[in-house]
């Protein structure tokens, strides 16, 4: 395998791992669900996407590489939607915000 290609793959894996780690740290450390979600959706879109990208570079244009690219597309469609839905659900079931943040269109009052 070409050395540069291997280096690119390795770099992408490192980047992906970093985002996974960061997302998990955020998941553990942030004060409420909205903040945690903010951290983990980075892990999903950037972290997992880097991994997929690494796969795409590694496998080249056919087979596993193509699948990896499709996977990136999927992740970018579904991960934000999932985050959106779950934050909406959290808001509607009345999970309070940390600090003085507010839902757009509502003036600092929690729940509806």
């Amino acid at each position: 395998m070409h050395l540069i290609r291997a280096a690119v793959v390795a770099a992408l894996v490192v980047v992906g791992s970093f985002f996974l780690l960061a997302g998990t740290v955020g998941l553990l450390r942030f004060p409420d669900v909205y903040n945690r979600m903010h951290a983990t959706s980075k892990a999903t879109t950037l972290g997992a996407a880097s991994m997929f990208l690494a796969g795409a570079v590694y496998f080249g244009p056919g087979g596993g590489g193509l699948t990896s690219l499709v996977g990136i597309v999927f992740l970018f469609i579904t991960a934000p939607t999932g985050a959106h839905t779950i934050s909406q659900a959290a808001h509607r079931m009345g999970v309070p915000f940390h600090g003085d943040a507010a839902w757009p269109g509502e003036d600092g009052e929690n729940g509806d």
Partner: protein
Amino acid sequence: MATELPGFLALVVQGGLLLASGVTLFAGYRVIRGPTTPDRVVALDTIGTNVVAVAVLVAIRTGRGFFVDVGLVLAIIGFVSTIAVARYVTEGDIIE
């Protein structure tokens, strides 16, 4: 494709695998402790992300492209459960 990986790449991939499976432990903590259901869902999503990463890394390590499929399917499927739980906690019923 199943050629021998260069030493540094093998090391990185192995490290990535360890990391991806290791952080599931902490995400698991969030699933278990909550405190709210959305917290658990978010944490579970993170675990799913880690599984995607593991699948891709295993694909690279073994040189078998079809392991990527596992990640692909998970990327689609994880979304379904997130939406289902979201609906459940707000409506109490996921299909009307």
